[in-house]
Structures are given as structure tokens and as C-alpha cells.
């Protein structure tokens, strides 16, 4: 049988964080790396449980219990600061002569190398500790590079969204684009009509058949609006199921009413989505730039809005002109 000293020398090389304890749990020898963690306080001769606190398994509290965990894994901590966490594997020595407990840092390795200024020489040549440290640094550097790229891309995306003028779902203009068009028309003293169109029963399609059906309906509605208007007109989706159509140079109310009528009749026709029938309709309110002395975008939108509200009030699938509203003296001032 190998002498204790010979065995210790062997273990110094193979597992420099070993502890050899006798049957009483007294430390016979400790590996050089483990001893390095407590310089000036030799572990040899002290009780294992005085140096280390057993964290898991919780049921084990005595040295006899510990020694019975042959082949088992234990979690330990130093009693004193820094209370580095260690994992250990217990291998009993023959004839009840105590045990070898091989310790390792496990996940606490990152703090340990810093706290104890460990070097490669403190780990055995087959220990993966150095590779782990390498990997952590390499991955951290790669992650940082990725993160900084993500931040820049996010910034670019926000800027692009800010500048975007197209509604992604329908391909129509968006609210921002509509504001720009309206601004241009007003500052250029152009005459135009502004139609505010709201889909009726859209919410019920969405609720009943799901968002995919809702998206489909919006796309179909957008297509119809583009087909029923001229190239120089602006069709914008300004909200969930709200649209604005700007007719440049067109202020003839009977023509506008015809267009509105065609739009409503086409939008009322059921659309088929994956075998399910989607029925919507539309209400429209129309205002003219010529109805205001010095037209203002907000004022015009509000006027079209009031006409739309009246159309809805009359039972949906209708078109209402702001002029009719003004003539009848019914201006729901409380509207929005």
C-alpha cells in the first residue's frame, strides 16, 4: 500500500485542491492550490468541518455522515471570508482510514481567480478552468460587440420608422405622410376635398376571426380605395380602421358623393378569408377646403370627422357631407 506522503505527492500534481482527512475528519494534507486560498493558516491538523461549512446535502452534519457519502458530491463553503463556494467529491480511503475529498470551484471560479490571484499554474493541466475563463472572456467580448451592434441597429430602426411614410400592412400612406400632403396643399392654396372613412364592424371581424382576417380585410379595403381613386389622390391609413382620402383639385360634392357611394357599396360586399365570410361596411364624412376661409389641417380633419360622426349616427354605411351638416345647423360640438 502506498504511503500517505507518496499519495499526497501524487495528488498535489493530479488534483491540487484535494483534502485528505483521517477517520476523525482531521485534515492530514491539503493540496497546494487549496492551501493557497488560506495563506498563513495551514489546514493540516485542523478539523475539516472547522475549515469548511457543509452546504449540501443538508442532512449531513457530522464527519461520519460526510465520510459515508462515498462517490457523492458535496457543496461547501469556507467558514471565514471570502466565503468561496466549493464543490467536492468524496473518495474513502481503504480500511476506514478516512477519505480524499477533491474540491473544485465550480461556478465560483470567476470570483476565485480574482480573489486569490490564481494563475494557470494553480490548476492541473487537465483542469478546464483556464478554458472556462477563456470562454467567458471571449463570449463576453463577442456579446458586447453584438450588443453594441444591436443598439446601433435599434437606433437606426427608430430613425427609419420616424421617417417612414408608408403603412406597412396596407402599403397606403400613413398618418405622417397625410400630414405632409395636407400641409403642402394648404400652403400651396390648392383646393381639395378630405374624406374621412371608417370601417364599420371591423372590430367584430377581428374578434370573431382573428387578427389575420382583420389584416386581410384592411388590405382588401385599401385596395378598393386605391382602385376607386385617382393616382393624384392620397389614400392614408391613419388609425386601426380609419382612413383619409384627399382629392386634390376636386370639390364637386356630387362627384364626391358618387365616389363615396361606390366605395361603400364595394366595401359592403362580403370578403372571403380562408373560407370564412368577413362582412364589413364603411361610413364616410367629407369636407372641402373651400368651406373654410383660411383652411387649417386640424380644422378640416375635424369637419370631416363631424360629418363621419353624423353618417354613423344615421345608421352606418352612409356618406355625409360637412356642408349638409352645417346647413342643418347640427354641429355636434361635443364630438372629440
Amino acid at each position, binding site marked *: 500500500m502506498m504511503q500517505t506522503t507518496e499519495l499526497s505527492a501524487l495528488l498535489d500534481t493530479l488534483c491540487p485542491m484535494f483534502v485528505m482527512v483521517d477517520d476523525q475528519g482531521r485534515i492530514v494534507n491539503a493540496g497546494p492550490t487549496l492551501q493557497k486560498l488560506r495563506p498563513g493558516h495551514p489546514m493540516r491538523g485542523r478539523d475539516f468541518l472547522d475549515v469548511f461549512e457543509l452546504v449540501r446535502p443538508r442532512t449531513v452534519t457530522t464527519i461520519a455522515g460526510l465520510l459515508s457519502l462515498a462517490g457523492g458530491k458535496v457543496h461547501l463553503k469556507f467558514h471565514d471570508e471570502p466565503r468561496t463556494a466549493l464543490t467536492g467529491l468524496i473518495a474513502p480511503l481503504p480500511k476506514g482510514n478516512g477519505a480524499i475529498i477533491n474540491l473544485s470551484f465550480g461556478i465560483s471560479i470567476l470570483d476565485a481567480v480574482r480573489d486569490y490571484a490564481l494563475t494557470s499554474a494553480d490548476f492541473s493541466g487537465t483542469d478546464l478552468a483556464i478554458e472556462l475563463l477563456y470562454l467567458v472572456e471571449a463570449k463576453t*467580448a463577442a456579446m458586447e460587440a453584438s450588443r453594441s451592434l444591436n443598439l446601433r441597429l435599434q437606433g437606426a430602426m427608430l430613425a427609419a420608422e420616424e421617417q417612414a411614410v408608408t403603412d406597412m400592412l396596407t402599403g397606403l400612406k400613413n398618418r405622417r405622410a397625410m400630414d405632409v400632403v395636407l400641409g403642402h396643399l394648404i400652403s400651396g392654396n390648392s383646393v381639395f376635398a378630405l374624406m374621412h372613412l371608417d370601417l364599420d364592424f371591423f372590430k367584430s371581424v377581428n374578434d370573431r376571426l382573428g387578427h389575420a382576417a382583420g389584416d386581410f380585410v384592411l388590405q382588401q379595403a385599401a385596395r378598393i380605395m386605391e382602385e376607386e381613386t385617382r393616382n393624384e389622390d392620397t389614400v392614408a391609413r391613419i388609425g386601426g380602421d380609419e382612413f383619409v382620402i384627399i382629392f386634390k383639385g376636386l370639390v364637386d360634392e356630387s362627384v364626391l358623393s358618387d365616389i363615396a357611394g361606390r366605395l361603400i357599396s364595394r366595401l359592403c360586399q362580403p370578403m372571403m378569408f380562408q373560407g370564412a365570410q368577413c362582412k364589413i361596411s364603411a361610413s364616410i364624412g367629407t369636407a372641402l377646403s373651400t368651406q373654410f376661409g383660411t383652411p387649417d389641417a386640424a380644422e378640416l380633419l375635424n369637419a370631416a370627422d363631424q360629418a363621419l360622426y353624423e353618417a354613423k349616427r344615421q345608421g352606418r354605411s352612409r356618406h355625409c357631407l360637412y356642408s349638409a351638416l352645417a346647413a342643418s345647423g347640427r354641429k355636434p360640438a361635443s364630438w372629440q
Partner: protein
Amino acid sequence: MYGLINRAIQSFVCTTYGQPCWLRVTEAAGLGIAEFEAMLLYDDAVTAQVLDALCADLNRQRAEILEDLGTYLVSHPNMEDLRRLLRFGGVTYVEFLHSLDDLSDRARLAVSDLRLPMLELREVSPAEYHLYCYPGLPGYSSVMVGVLRAIADDYGALAMLSHEGQSGDAEVITIVLIESSFAEGRHFDLGARKS
């Protein structure tokens, strides 16, 4: 080509020759961009265009510039992360040289789709080594000469390096180790962490 490589060139040029030089080079190369993103992929031709434009701008040989790039990668404070990763290769310069066989695998461990050419160290004598650089990245062996020279300083070793030329499809670098602990070298603290 991985952006990391282009980005390294960009960082080297901006630090060594200044931002105006870099802008001239990217302009001359007709890239349409002046900034590379480390974690994006670029066409291989882009790197060649940049290097050609750089050689023309500086009126220097490509191999010389790439050696300087290699030195920069190890010795400039901007590149401390990379120096540390390389130093994980070994405790001594000789150990580091032997770890070069694993360099492409190590790089892949960090960035899974980064492919660096194979390297193979052959020991001629304890004081002389030949490093075989296999193809895959034009100019890699020149960069490696710069890296090996700078990291020898880092370890405090005194070594002479020369580019021996071609052997089969590999380019061969000769490393003659004059003294392995010539100077103090720079400290490598395993537990050092960025604040």
C-alpha cells in the same frame, strides 16, 4: 468575410494613420461605407479592396502593413481584450507557440462562424520553430508575423521572426527563440475584469 476582421483593419488604420486616412481609403475603395460592423458579414472582395486602397494611399507593401496590423492587435491598448484572449494560450512563449495549433478552434469557440486558417507549429529544435499557415485568409501569415513578434515582447521573450515563404500550399514563418525570458514581459492577471 467576418466584420471583425474588417473592423480590426479599420481600428488599426484610424489609430495609426488617423481618421482622414481611413476615409480616403474607404472612398478610394468605393465601399459606400466608412464603418464596418464587427458582427456582420461582408463580401471577401471588400477586404481586398480596402487593403489595396490602403497600400496605394500609404505607398507601402501589403505584407509590411499587415505585419504592423498584427503588432497592433497585440500591443495596442484598444485591443487589450484580444491580447488577453491570446495570452490564455499559454504561460510561456513556447507554450503559446504550441497553442497556435488550436487558435482557429479557439476563435470558433468565441464566435462560432468565424473561420480562421489552420496553423501548425513544427519544432525544429527547442530554439527554432516553423509555423505553417494554411490558406483561407490572404495575408494571414503576414499578420501572424506581427502578432508573434508583439506577443514575444508581451511574454518578455526575445525571438527573431522571418517569413520563409511557401511550402506546398502553406506559408511558413520561422521563429528563432534567442531567449525565452529576456525581459520582464507584461503581466497577465487571470482574474482581471473590465470595470
